[in-house]
């Protein structure tokens, strides 16, 4: 399975290296593009001390698997790894990892950028932040800027 939903903290770079070793990709890939989303300790000008990521487990898994398949259809990828946290998350903890391997650079770079955009807009996850004024649901994601 190249998509994983984790209820505990993970080390994204360790996950990439481990996946790369077990995926028998050795010497065939020329390009690896990755994106890591990390929890910040502020959002919308408010301090955030922790947050909980709720999701719709069956649909999340289904949707991430579908995204991976779509990416593989659109680009010539050798491998894809998607990991997303759920549950309680603290500042500086990684939330999401997307890594794409390909022979040449454009496939990996474009697929990685596309995957995080699709995931942000459509994967059924919801953030509830805990800050100085208590808990609040994040209303919508930023446009990335």
């Amino acid at each position: 399975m190249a998509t994983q939903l984790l209820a505990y903290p993970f080390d994204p770079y360790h996950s990439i290296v481990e996946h790369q070793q077990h995926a028998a990709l050795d010497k065939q890939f020329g390009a690896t593009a990755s994106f890591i989303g990390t929890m910040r300790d502020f959002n919308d000008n408010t301090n955030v001390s922790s947050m909980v990521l709720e999701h719709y487990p069956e649909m999340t898994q289904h949707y991430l698997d579908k995204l991976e398949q779509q990416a593989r259809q659109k680009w010539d990828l050798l491998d894809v790894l998607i990991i997303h946290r759920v549950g309680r998350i603290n500042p500086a903890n990684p939330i999401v990892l997307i890594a794409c391997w390909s022979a040449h650079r454009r496939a990996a770079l474009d697929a990685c950028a596309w995957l995080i955009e699709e995931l942000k807009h459509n994967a059924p996850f919801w953030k509830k932040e805990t800050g100085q004024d208590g808990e609040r649901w994040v209303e919508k994601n930023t446009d990335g800027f």
Partner: protein
Amino acid sequence: MSIQVKFFASLREKMGITETKIETASTAGEVWDMTTNNADRPLNVLVAVNLEYAQYDSQVSDGDEVAFFPPVTGG
């Protein structure tokens, strides 16, 4: 047979429903009406039928799973 209905995140809290079942309905909108006691249908609510995005007017059948949730904020 029956239709499984799920609510998530702020909508789950607002409606006070996590999961419920109804006997039957013909559209997702009807599922909403029956499970929320005819609450207004919010414009920004997302609807999923059997784990795929759908609309209020999407058909539903016995055995389906229908979910309602607010805009997603993952990643």
